[in-house]
């Protein structure tokens, strides 16, 4: 890959509160090229959202980025001033959040919430901005956009609201869109529509996407490359097809085989699902060595003592495991 | 010093936080006398210096031999604020109105001694037969009893309205009277302003141009306002009395007077221990009244040595109050069969001079002789229902004991019902005889002598604990002059006699 749009290297996020400090995210590295869609999967609490927030500079205490770099078009975002970051935020890097129900201001008409983007970043007057908002709403395929701009969020369905969020995010044609589980709260049928819409719009504008999800299906559908996170570590980062065909990390492998596969019961009868024993460790007691070690069936002595390092797998991929396949 | 006309007086009505009504006939609140005294006049007036009623709206009176009919020559120079001249009709109108059969005006108690008043009130007569207009300026009043009507007809509650006044729609928002000041403005609950009546009959008076009568119930607020020079007079409570007396500046302008109120604890004879005179006396011995007066009342009271107050003509200057003698008290109690004392409930209101504050001081004193007292705090309107109703074991109250001594002492006459004012159901044949004789007495001296005896008997019998007579204390600003020692009610001043000098802050 030539120069990546976003290049994250060894990102580290700590939770510092009242004198104690815990590590939440460590050694996270990945790169997203222009116009590329990159997926980030992992279980709840593994650090996906805070990684995403770090990209856009919205981490709030007690969370702090304590190491690594985030290069956006060559600029290290961690070194920018608050003012410079504000200029990028929304304008060049935009974000969509998980909960369409609460992510919009309930007391403000959606049109205005879209228009704010134009006022903020393009110096438009409110009047112009409101007009542009109608166009923006039309572009996310909301019917009767000139009426809908006057609606308040509660008058819209979840899918509609998520469209509004997309309209806001894409209003200034950002280079990078961070989508943090944009469809988790939606019905499958609506999810399909929204994903399709996002794909189309981003393709058309050449917007790169960081797609966060815990649904492997969504990732497989949307992304070319995927990073799999486990307990604040990037377990492996590879093209999607490789991951599904030949999962290298034992966690990825366990995850894939624990999923019931549609159609497999028809052809092979009901088989007992593979389980990953144990539970995800909590931040306060992450193991010192490999964080998956307590649940891993391949674990050995070294896994307990030492943190695994990235192992290059070729084809722009790596895995973080001593015993990878 | 020559009275100085002009200026504004900021007067204080200190007892409630509002005037109840601008119809004084309908009111029974002392608070309302403050504005009445400015706006209205009654047939008689009270001479605060001589302690007796004097003619006000009449220039002359002649009394019939049976002492029942009084014929008044009315003033011809008295004009109502609306310009109308006062005539006998106005007086007849006013007294008749007070006895209105459809209404229960409290002032009726002062008129009911006029012949035919009660009949009229009960609807049995068309008019009050005892009121006769002889001509426009001559009025004859016939009484039911040979008493001096001055005491009744001087009260502010029997103020004279212009005839037909009550029919005027705005009379009770803009009262019109004969007084030295004319109504100007009323801010309900806060202030009533009156302005000088140039046509007041007492020529040369009043002096001040305007009086603001402010309503201030709260003593500490009043204190602040007085020190802040916002008001020209302030009635002092005990604590303030001390403070003012010890302040060299404030101490200069304090006026004190013995008011005609006797503070006491009444004993209900229905409660067994109180049937015994020795018990009642024991309580009088057991309480160190002087100490209480000195320390708690801050000397703002005169020790009571009987029922009649110091200013009463029948007051016996030689009579001694009960001494403080707990040993004697114990002995008396033991004799009466209560060597270990007993317990009683003392009903009282929240009042620092004749209420719970005093009760609190009594409790430990009586405790020393074995009597346990339980305070029963009540609101004043409850006290005045419970006491005439006999619903108490003992009560503490302040009762009017003047200016007419006979009226005051009749409250212990056995035929006076408890519901009227014989609250302790006092019943003593010797006493009754003295009272009856006093009623028939030919001369004042004879009457006063009899009443003195009755009063002494009363003290001996001790139907009450004789606590004190009120010493009313009023502080006034140095620029205010003409303040009168009114023993009826210190704070109620004849405004026409007040004046302010040029040192008064311009307001």
């Amino acid at each position, binding site marked *: 890959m030539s120069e990546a749009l976003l290049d994250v290297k060894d990102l580290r996020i700590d939770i510092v509160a009242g004198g104690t400090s815990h590590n939440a995210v460590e050694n996270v590295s990945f790169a997203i090229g222009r116009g590329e869609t990159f997926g980030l999967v992992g279980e709840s609490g593994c650090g996906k959202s805070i990684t995403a927030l770090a990209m856009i500079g919205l981490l709030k205490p007690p969370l702090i980025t304590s190491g690594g770099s985030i290069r956006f078009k060559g600029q290290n975002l961690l070194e920018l001033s608050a003012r410079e970051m504000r200029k990028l935020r929304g304008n060049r890097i935009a974000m969509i959040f998980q909960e369409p129900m609460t992510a919009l201001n309930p007391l403000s008409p959606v049109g205005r919430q879209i228009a704010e983007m134009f006022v903020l970043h393009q110096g438009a007057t409110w009047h112009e901005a409101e007009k542009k908002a109608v166009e923006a709403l039309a572009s996310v395929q909301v019917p009767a956009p000139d009426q809908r701009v006057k609606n308040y969020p509660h008058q819209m369905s979840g899918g509609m609201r998520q469209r509004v969020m997309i309209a806001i995010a894409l209003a200034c044609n950002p280079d990078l869109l961070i989508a943090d589980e944009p469809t988790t709260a939606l019905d499958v049928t609506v999810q399909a529509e929204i994903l399709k819409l996002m794909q189309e719009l981003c393709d058309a504008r050449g917007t790169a996407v960081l797609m966060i999800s815990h649904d492997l299906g969504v990732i497989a559908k949307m992304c070319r490359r995927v990073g799999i996170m486990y307990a604040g570590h990037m377990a492996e980062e590879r093209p999607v097809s490789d991951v599904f065909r030949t999962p290298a990390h034992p966690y990825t492998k366990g995850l894939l085989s624990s999923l019931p596969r549609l159609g497999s019961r028809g052809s092979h009868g009901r088989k007992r699902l593979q389980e990953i024993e144990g539970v995800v460790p909590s931040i306060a007691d992450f193991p010192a060595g490999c964080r998956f070690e307590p649940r891993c069936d391949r674990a050995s002595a070294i896994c307990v003592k030492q943190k695994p390092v990235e192992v290059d797998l070729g084809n722009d991929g790596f895995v973080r495991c001593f015993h990878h396949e | 010093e020559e009275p100085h006309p002009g200026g504004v007086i900021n007067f204080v009505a200190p007892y409630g936080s509002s005037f109840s009504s601008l119809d004084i006939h309908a009111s029974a609140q002392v608070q309302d006398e403050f504005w009445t005294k400015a706006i209205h006049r009654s047939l008689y007036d009270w001479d605060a210096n001589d302690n007796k009623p004097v003619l006000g709206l009449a220039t002359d009176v002649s009394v019939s031999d049976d002492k029942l009919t009084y014929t008044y020559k009315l003033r011809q120079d008295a004009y109502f604020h609306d310009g109308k001249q006062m005539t006998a009709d106005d007086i007849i109108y006013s007294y008749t109105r007070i006895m209105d059969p459809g209404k229960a005006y409290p002032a009726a108690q002062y008129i009911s001694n006029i012949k035919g008043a009660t009949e009229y009130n009960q609807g049995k007569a068309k008019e009050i037969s005892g009121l006769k207009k002889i001509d426009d300026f001559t009025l004859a009043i016939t009484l039911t009893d040979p008493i001096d009507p001055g005491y009744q007809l001087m009260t502010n509650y029997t103020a004279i309205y212009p005839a037909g006044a009550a029919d005027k729609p705005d009379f009770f928002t803009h009262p019109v009277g004969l007084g030295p000041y004319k109504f100007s403005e009323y801010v309900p609950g806060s202030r009533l302003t009156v302005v000088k009546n140039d046509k007041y009959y007492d020529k040369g008076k009043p002096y001040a141009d305007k009086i603001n009568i402010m309503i201030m119930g709260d003593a500490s607020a009043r204190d602040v306002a007085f020190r802040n020079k916002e008001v020209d007079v302030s009635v002092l409570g005990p604590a*303030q009395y001390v403070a003012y007396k010890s302040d060299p500046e404030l101490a200069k302008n304090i006026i004190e007077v013995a008011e005609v109120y006797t503070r006491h604890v009444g004993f209900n004879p229905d409660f067994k221990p109180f049937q015994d005179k020795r018990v009642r006396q024991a309580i009088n011995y057991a309480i160190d009244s002087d100490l209480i007066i000195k320390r708690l009342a801050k000397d703002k009271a005169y020790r009571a040595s009987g029922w009649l107050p110091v200013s009463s003509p029948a007051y016996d200057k030689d009579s001694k109050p009960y001494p403080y003698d707990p040993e004697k008290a114990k002995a008396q109690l033991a004799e009466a069969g209560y060597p270990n004392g007993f317990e009683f409930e003392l009903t009282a209101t929240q009042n620092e001079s004749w209420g719970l504050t005093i*009760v609190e001081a009594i409790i*430990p004193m009586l405790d020393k002789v074995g009597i346990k007292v339980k*305070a*029963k*705090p009540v609101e004043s309107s409850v006290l005045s229902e419970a006491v005439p109703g006999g619903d108490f074991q003992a009560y503490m109250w302040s009762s009017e004991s003047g200016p007419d001594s006979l009226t005051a002492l009749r409250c212990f006459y056995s035929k006076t019902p408890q519901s009227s004012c014989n609250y302790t159901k006092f019943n003593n044949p010797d006493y009754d005889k003295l009272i009856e004789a006093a009623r028939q007495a030919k001369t004042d001296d004879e009457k006063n002598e009899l009443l003195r005896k009755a009063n002494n008997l009363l003290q001996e019998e001790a139907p009450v604990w004789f606590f004190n007579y009120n010493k009313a204390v009023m502080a006034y600003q140095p620029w205010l002059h003409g303040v009168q020692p009114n023993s009826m009610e210190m704070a109620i001043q004849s405004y026409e006699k007040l004046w302010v000098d040029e040192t008064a802050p311009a307001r």
Partner: protein
Amino acid sequence: MGLRLNLVIGGVLCVLIIAAAVLAPWLAHYNPIMDADLMNAELPPDGQFWFGTDSQGRDVFSRILYGAQVSLTVGIGSQLINTIIGLIFGISAGYFGGWWDDLVSGLTNLMLSIPSLIFALAIMAVLGPGLPSLLIALGLTNWSWTCRIARSSTLSLKSQGYVQAAKTLGYGDARIMATQILPNMIGPVLVIATLGMGDAILSEAALSYLGLGIRPPQPSWGNMLTDARELIVIAPWAAIFPGVAIFLTVLGLNLFGDGLRDWLDPHMRTRRA
């Protein structure tokens, strides 16, 4: 910040007041009622009378200690009544819904719409001054907050899995309310009760001022303060110490209640952290 400062300060103040009340008979040098020597009236604070004496010559310090008993009785007693009424009405209204809920809501709104001090005043006028009347008056007038909290907590707890499960497991309604719902709303109810105690102590003072408080000579901070108002120029200590006692107690209760709320409400916890 591990321990909440307001909880600690509030707790310490409350413990001190409770200790003062409980230990009053041992701490007080004088009998608060009978040791009244008018010869000692209005003495300033000194080694003998730590907080001076009042107009009756009673030791202000001793009276404040005994007054703590009254204030705490008023605070705790009235809140106990309020809490019980509020919980019974609130939980049952939230749980059963329907006309009963409408009725209780109407009653709550009614209680809220009459200023509670005025309501208490009216009740005191009927019952006459005294501690029992005060408990009743303050206990009957302030339950609407508890009731509202209890009702809304019940409404949200009612749909929680474990309450629903209890129903399917055959629990009776009373048992569900007592074992599944009540224990889970103790926190906010406790907060309301703590704050309510402060209010009750202030109301006692206000009612005393209006002449409808505790029966003298029993000392309560409210009536001590009312009595001493007149003395503020000549014997300020008699007014200042009870005022400070009320202030510190209510402050302690408010701080404690506040701290309790922060501590119980995880939302606030992350917010503050």
